[in-house]
């Protein structure tokens, strides 16, 4: 009887999480059967890390906060800050990078430069009126938040790995996954926090 109840519990759990007997969820197994590699987009991209698994929960409010904080902390520990301790690059290069939304799709090649995709979701320089609204406006970021080194480091960290600060944020982990280099992230930090950047004019 007890064994039966326990099994029932396990089954109930399995059906809510859609997890199979192994470690892989039913949905992951289904997707890996139904999707195939095309160009640079390999089928292995469907493998999830712990952050992706947790953030795939339809109702995020049901995920214990402690669990989210623990993963955020782990992500923060993995951020590689610049060894030279400098965070500000060239805002002009940052603007070009922010504009570029290409890279990493199956219609791109390994040679396609990977863009920052920033304007897809954020308002940034006031001259660019074609901006998305998934993320907050970054216009006047430095003017509002201040130009301190602590701010620069924070911006660097958020671009490197947004999930280290807000676990299930929509924003990619550009540095963490190697989409952007240290120098590129510095250029984006400059776009936000160089007093000469149009963002702060």
């Amino acid at each position, binding site marked *: 009887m007890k064994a039966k109840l326990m099994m029932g519990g396990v089954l109930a759990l399995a059906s809510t999480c*859609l997890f199979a007997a192994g470690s892989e*969820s*039913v*949905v*992951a197994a*289904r*997707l890996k*059967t*139904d*999707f*195939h*590699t*095309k160009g640079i*987009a*390999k*089928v292995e*991209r*469907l*493998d*999830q890390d712990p*952050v*992706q698994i947790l*953030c*795939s*929960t*339809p109702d995020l409010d049901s995920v214990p906060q402690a669990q989210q904080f623990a993963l955020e902390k782990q992500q923060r520990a993995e951020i590689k800050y610049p060894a030279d301790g400098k965070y500000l690059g060239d805002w002009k290069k940052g603007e070009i990078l922010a504009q570029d*939304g290409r890279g*990493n*799709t*199956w*219609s791109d090649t390994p040679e396609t430069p990977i863009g920052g995709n920033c*304007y*897809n*979701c954020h308002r940034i320089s006031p001259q660019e*009126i*074609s*901006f*998305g*609204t*998934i993320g907050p406006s970054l216009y006047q970021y430095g003017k509002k938040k201040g130009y301190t080194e602590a701010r620069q480091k924070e911006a660097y960290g958020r671009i490197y790995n947004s*999930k280290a600060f807000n676990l299930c944020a*929509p924003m*990619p*982990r550009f540095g963490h*996954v190697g*989409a952007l280099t240290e120098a590129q992230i510095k250029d984006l930090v400059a776009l936000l926090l160089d007093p000469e950047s149009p963002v702060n004019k």
Partner: protein
Amino acid sequence: MKGRLLISAAVVSLGMAGMAWSQGNSATAEIEKYREMLGDGNPAELFEMDGEALWATARGPKNASLQKCDLGLGAGVVKGAYAQMPRYFADSDKVEDLESRLMTCMVKLQGFDRAELSKKPFGTANYKSDMEALVAYVVGQSRGMPMAVPTAHPKEKAAFELGKQIFFYRAGPYDFSCATCHAMTDARIRMQDLPDLTSPAGSQRAYTSWPAYRVSQSLFRSFQWRLNDCFRQQRFPEPTYASESTIALTSYLATMANGATYQGPGIKR
């Protein structure tokens, strides 16, 4: 003529909803106006006519037409069928969306090879897709009908649940899921409005305007194409045409749109 009037009425109402929705956003309003203008003669009608002729033409190794194809409402019934898909089909013992079902019929009635049919389902500038023409015809026959996707069969329930899990599945280099872009109201990517597909209003508005004629590509696009290109931008690998996952995701989205009037084929930028 009557069809035309209906289309323009549908597009005008869409346009107005769009304009109220994007108040203070002149670029979006301009796109809506453009769409409204074009709606008077949606080029999708040309694809509908092609598809209607194809439906009635004897083709394939068995030299048969599709006129005995059962899209869920009985053999040969096209009127209103799309507004009730995806659905469970007893003969194939699975849930099928329109494109899967058309292939099932083309295999069974006409003797075509399913793998062959799946190879090039999407048209290009130099290649006309039979599948997309057939899709245009069938969906056009549901214009003005209420979306009523059945959910009673256990396999329909399972498809909806799987589709929901896929909608929220985050993976790939950018951690994107469908929900990353389609779970908030009034959001845009660059200038493109993003429907909130987790809300009935958002998913009704979006789902009922697909499949559609794509002005920028001068092509008619099926729902499988819509999903395929979303996954491309999501930086995912490619979904296999009419695979269980894509049908399940369609089941989720179509069921969310239940109750709304089907307005397609639509017209997109």
